[in-house]
């Protein structure tokens, strides 16, 4: 059995069990370690990826269900303003939750050019951070939104 999908803009042909969690396929077969296992229960958000632009828990999502779809992981955000904003705000301690959070923030910023603080909190509320860096994270997303508003990027340039 094999599954075709597009991961971070690259067409992939994976000869894998379609019941395998998407997270395992990304981490163990495509060497994309940025998406992390936290609970396997869709409760913490450490594994969040974008599937056709929507945040999805990769830990419990079967690989077969994303056939033909566009998957984006945190590795696709290297030049995204979110990355610089998280560093500017030093938004993180242990850092384990941050990649899933960047993914949800990216989805929010794709939809909402000038998000309010309430919209940011709402978009991130499905994510858990145990170190208590939530405020720094919220400020980082606000900073990224401001940076993007100041220097709008070319449509489609994210890929």
């Amino acid at each position, binding site marked *: 059995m094999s599954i075709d999908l597009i991961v971070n803009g690259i067409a992939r042909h994976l000869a894998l069990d379609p019941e395998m969690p998407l997270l395992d396929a990304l981490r163990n077969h495509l060497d994309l370690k940025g998406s992390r296992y936290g609970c396997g229960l869709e409760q913490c958000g450490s594994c969040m990826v974008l599937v056709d632009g929507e945040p999805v828990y990769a830990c419990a999502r079967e690989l077969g269900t994303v056939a033909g779809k566009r998957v984006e992981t945190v590795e696709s955000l290297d030049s995204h303003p979110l990355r610089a904003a998280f560093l500017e705000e030093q938004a993180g301690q242990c850092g384990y939750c941050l990649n899933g959070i960047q993914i949800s923030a990216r989805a929010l910023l794709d939809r909402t050019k000038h998000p309010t603080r309430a919209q940011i909190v709402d978009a991130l509320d499905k994510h858990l951070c145990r*170190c208590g860096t*939530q*405020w720094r994270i919220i400020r980082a997303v606000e900073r990224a939104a401001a940076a993007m508003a100041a220097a709008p990027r070319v449509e489609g340039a994210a890929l």
Partner: protein
Amino acid sequence: MSAAATLPLSFTTNPSPARWVRFDPDRTLHLAVGKVEIGQGIVTALTQIAAEELDVPLERIRILSGDTDDAPDEGATTSSLSIEVGGASLRLIAAEVRARMIDRLAQRLNCAPGEITVQDGAFLRAEAPTGQDYWSLAAEVDLSRPADGAAPPKPRAAYRLVGTSVARRDLPAKLSGAAFIHDLVRPDLLHARTLRQPGRGAVLTALDEAAIRRAAKGELRILRLGNFVALLSAEESVAQRAAAAAPLHAHWEQVRVLAPEEAEAAWLVGRPSNDQIVGDAPADAAGTVIAARYSRPYVAHASIAPSCALAESRDGHLSVWSHTQGVYPLRAALGRVLGRSEDTISVHHAMGAGCYGHNGADDAALDAALIAQQIPDHCIRLQWRREEEFGFEPLGSAMSVTVRAVLDDAGRPIDWTQEVWSGSHVQRPAMGGNMLAHEALPVPAPDPRPRDPTEAAGGGGTRNGIPHYAILARRILHHLVPVTPVRTSALRGLGALPNVFAIECFIDELAARIGADPVAYRLSLLDGRPRAARVIARAAEMAGWAGCGPGGDGHGWGIGFAQYKNKSAYAAVVAEVEVDQEVRLRRVWCAADAGMVVNPDGAKNQIEGGILQAASYTIREQVRFDAKGVASVDWASYPILRFSEVPEIACELVDASSERSLGVGECAFGPTAAAIGNAVAHALGVRLRDMPFTRERIAGVLLAE
């Protein structure tokens, strides 16, 4: 006083500079330290200290942290001591390296050492380049000879890097991809999961391996050692499926049954205990006696990542990768359990998620090592399941704290007794505890021998049990309950959170008796303690504290204060809450005095995080038990504070740069719990003395009114 009397522990254990510092041919400085990164930013702060003392640019320093092959033995990374002890040691070592290098160059140039200065790793004489630097001289200078601590570190006035908010070195990788132990890949990798023995003494009488293999849907290896069972596959999802199914196909006997009431702190009171009295004899003072009892239940570290370890046995040598807090103590513990000499084991630290104390890291390392010994020439990557992490990590002990005070005519305490009932707060493998799998082996571990850290080390159940205030006589009656329903061990602050919660709530109750303002009442009890008074006054000022007002209208303000361990950083916290059916934190202010701060933003980050985690413990968290054991096994049954529930935080470090550095990792913990306790009491007009402040507890006290 001789210098030796005051030298920090990491220095005296590892006096050879070569153990810490090496100048590599690629013109980098290889720095090796024993304190490890557990999310607190220590690797960055230690790099700053070395760069400052040596005058080497930060970007030329590569740091190795926690490695039994190549890094110094600094014990475990605990107790907010990494800057106080590890940083102070590194500073002396770096000063010695600099002095030896300068001495060598002075000999060559036939000049006085005082004529030589360092800039960006290069030596200048009278401001002019000498053409020499650390790297060109490295071969001529013996760094293995032990240091004596006599080389003077830089004067603080000359600091350029220490005291600035250098960006964390670990964050870029963590934000972009592989960074954690979970992400390590090595040849011949096998993914492993365990079937956990439900508890000490439980016996596996039947295991339907065929059923587990069917559920795994792939090539699976099952390894059994007594009551320890491992499930292995080259494909992670196969091992994971097997592990999910295994408990359904295993029959255990002699399983200990837990009852829900055992999860309450009150269950500990009156149990068989080892007792001690710490502090002063009772004051010869008569007066009104007031008492109140407070409690915190069992709580979880609840790391966001499951515990993980890698182990491989090749050519008779066992290599282990772990997110342990101490690679050397872990190596010693593994040696004892595996019956191997320590020189056949290497333990390498690799970063995990924040641990906040003794979580499952060491246990996972033993799991992986046991498997690797049985299956050599493979890398065993062992990862716990989420329910395993919640169900089997050592918990922070429940504590019941009763405060009794004798008051003078003015309503001020003159005699204070803090009576504590608690399980152990440290059962690390080196401190009388067992690693989990050891209890499942054919020759199981002996019974654990719970004890607490000594008072000199800050105590466990007694930590912060002596109030900082000027009270004639203060003591703790400590009942250590050695047999608790679940394994307990170190969780951020140990007994400090429940003790400070009790002390600071009781202080508010005493203030209320005489109609005094909580801030003014505290300040009146701080004669001769200016650093404490300063942070309390500053936190109140930051919050715009203008007296509490009558309260009882659902909106409340509260303050809490402590000096962590009564010898580390000072913190005062003010909380503003709204309470109806639930507690909603609005804003929190904190003023802290941490002496000379190496990295102010890093310190603030730690304090902010400590505030939010303590808030979560105070209003949300309790590990529940049922007949099967720990019943809080996921984030739904063990909820923690979420993005939508975090308060706004303002945090300030008061200037104390002429004082020695004090660890900040745990300083805000107790004060936050107390500030929330006092704010909720103010909001409701009635006090909650038992954490967590759940909807049920709030309804309970309001009904009792």
